[in-house]
């Protein structure tokens, strides 16, 4: 057993921590939150230059990482700094699916992604699908050598910035069958694609995407007809490791801010951290934080295994993070008091990142259900 990061990952972590602490302070981030784009293209370009995007892809795909621990290393640092730039959507979900399924032509896009000159979005969730990954009502019909897409996609994160969308659509089967789901890679401005964009509660932007008689060619297909679910669930598993690691990083920041506040804020003539009622709660937070760290390590370390074993660990991590994250977010706010309720204080954003991450790809309860179904309990 060895729980140390490799030298390369340690360097990546150091680089990111230095870059983000210098270039991504609260004021900078809050300005990004208020911006129309919802992310900073300058920060994005710098992250690409530092190799942060490349770290999320394997050497075969033009990067220099791509394994579970690369993802967890990168996202823990992003979470620590409360970064809202869409690495999950462009790199892990969009880029990851192209790397996994794309033909040579489609894979050419990977270079742009790693270089930071292209954004992607995964248009998979639908108004009625909630957290059910195989519920796809959007239809793809073949007509005279063309494919016609019709449907609605919900809360498509990063859709407006994306040059291309990875769209899931059903070609056969019942609406919640795993078989029959196909993926298509199409320019976001294809005729018939329309978006209603909006900002997200914890930063960044998303859109409701309507697909009305969107006509595309066979060459837009990503992977085999009706056979995309396996790759989709693999990349969503990677995305969930990213989300769990990001929440872990944010939880570390919440705990650090709280610890500092307890030691400096004085009421009744002494630091509030001298009250045992708060000391024990701070101790509980640290216990949960170590649990969360181990859960992320377990999930990242099992990401390349067969689906049931992989997903069991992913669900375990996200269930634990869901519980520990809520505790740490709420207790951090409570022990700070009013100051943590203000938007300009760092903790407010960090707490939102932690809690709202529970709303992507399955909340705490849904993860518990999956864990039970996979024979984990």
């Amino acid at each position, binding site marked *: 057993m060895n729980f140390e990061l490799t030298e390369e990952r340690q360097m990546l972590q150091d680089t990111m921590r230095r870059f983000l602490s210098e270039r991504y302070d609260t004021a900078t981030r809050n300005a990004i939150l208020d911006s129309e784009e919802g992310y900073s293209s300058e920060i994005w370009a710098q992250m690409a230059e530092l190799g942060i995007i490349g770290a999320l892809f394997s050497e075969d795909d033009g990067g220099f990482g791509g394994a579970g621990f690369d993802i967890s290393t990168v996202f823990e640092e992003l979470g620590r700094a409360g970064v809202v730039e869409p690495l999950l959507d462009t790199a892990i979900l969009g880029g990851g699916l192209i790397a996994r399924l794309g033909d040579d032509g489609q894979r050419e896009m990977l270079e742009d992604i790693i270089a930071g000159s292209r954004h992607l979005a995964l248009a998979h*969730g639908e*108004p*009625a699908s*909630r*957290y*059910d990954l195989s*519920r796809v009502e959007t239809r793809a019909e073949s007509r005279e050598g063309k494919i016609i897409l019709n449907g609605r996609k*919900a*809360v498509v994160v990063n859709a407006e910035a994306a040059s291309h969308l990875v769209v899931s659509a059903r070609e056969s089967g019942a609406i*919640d069958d795993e078989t029959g789901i196909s993926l298509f890679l199409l320019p976001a401005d294809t005729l018939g694609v329309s978006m*209603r964009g*909006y*900002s*997200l*509660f*914890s930063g960044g932007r*998303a859109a*409701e995407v309507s697909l009305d008689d969107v006509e595309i060619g066979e060459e837009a297909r990503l992977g085999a007809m009706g056979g995309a679910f396996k790759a989709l669930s693999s990349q969503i598993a990677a995305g969930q490791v990213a989300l769990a690691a990001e929440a872990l990083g944010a939880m570390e920041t919440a705990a650090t801010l709280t610890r500092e506040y307890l030691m400096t804020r*004085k*009421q*009744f003539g002494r630091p509030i951290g001298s*009250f045992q*009622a*708060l000391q024990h709660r701070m101790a509980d937070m640290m216990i949960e934080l170590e649990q969360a760290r181990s859960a992320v390590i377990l999930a990242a370390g099992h990401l390349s295994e067969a689906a049931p074993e992989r997903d069991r660990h992913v669900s375990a991590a996200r269930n634990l993070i869901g519980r520990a994250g*809520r505790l740490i977010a*709420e207790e951090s*706010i*409570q022990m700070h*008091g*009013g100051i*943590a*309720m*203000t*938007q*300009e204080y760092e903790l*407010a*954003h960090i*707490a*939102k990142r932690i*809690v*709202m991450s*529970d*709303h*992507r790809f399955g*909340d*705490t*309860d*849904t993860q*518990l*259900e999956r864990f039970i179904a996979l024979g984990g309990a």
Partner: protein
Amino acid sequence: MDLSYTQDEIAFREEVRGFLDEKLPEELSAKVASGVVLSKADHDRWHAILNEKGWLAPNWPEEYGGCAWNAVQRHIFEEESARANAPRIVPFGLSMLAPVLMKFGSDAQRDHYLPRILSGEDWWCQGYSEPGAGSDLASLKTRAVRDGDDYIVNGQKTWTTLGQYANKIFCLVRTDTNVKQQEGISFLLIDMDTPGIEVRPIKLLDGTPEVNEVWFTDVRVPVENLVGEENMGWTYAKYLLTHERTNIAGVGFSQAALASVKRMARQERHNGKPLIGNPHFAARLAQVEIDLMAMATTNLRIISKAAAGQAPGVESSMLKVKGTIIRQELNDLARRAAGPYAMPFASETLDGDNDPVGPGYAAPTAAKYFNNRKLSIFGGSNEIQRGIIAKTLLAGGAK
């Protein structure tokens, strides 16, 4: 032991329900139900409707234009109002300042201010907390120095709720720095138009401008705006806090929130089936409902005691702690129930100008979850309340 309401109380509930059916404007209840932030005009409108009926001041004696309801009647009114999604009565003038003026104010102050509170002419805000004086309120530093017929006030107040709508502020100020903290505080009434006052909005984490900082720079306040005696302000402040705590359990709010979560969970589909039938979600919901049923009864037990003239002691602290835990748990359940559609930032929607992105019920859930973290912080944090309970229980024991 009899768990039923009296005939009079049942008749009173019917009367309240009938009034709300008839007089509560649909635009207002729709706004409250969907979590839209109410404007000053919305609040003023509802206050005026209640005032016309004579129901704006449930806790005031009749001689001042109140309805002199007992604790059970007030509870019934609050419960029915929450159920009907009526706006809450803005408490600063009506249930915080007014009782202080009635007990400690001069005749001139009562005659001048009380009718203006009822008519809506004055909107009061509260100048209590300061950046360095939160839970430890008695350490407040805002100074008032006597200069002829005026006090000159310098300092800063914070967390002033809806101060942006107010034309008056009641403040705790330090008038003596040479005595024990609690003994050098006075209670001043200040016109917000006085030169030297600046109101700066604080943006909360859900984006709403609900609270403010209020800065005082050489603000001249006439001596006749002192309530009661100089340096007795702490006594008045504590008296005010007992009134702030009359609806401390928030039973009505929680009942309305529970009903709303149930409605959401019946519409939401989880793996194609109603979320309300999902065992994990149903278990969470049932546990809160069980807690709420018991707390509603605890609340009634304490109210009955109060109605019989016994002053509630630690019980109000217990209700504050349990009541806020239950409300926050319900806010958490609403956020969970909304699923991915809790993620859109609904500020545009909540201004009432745009259609919600997903189902209307999902739009305010994240904002409400975060905004209501304040419930366990303000009005004496839950840590302060637990301290009061523990101190009372263990008095004379472990030191």
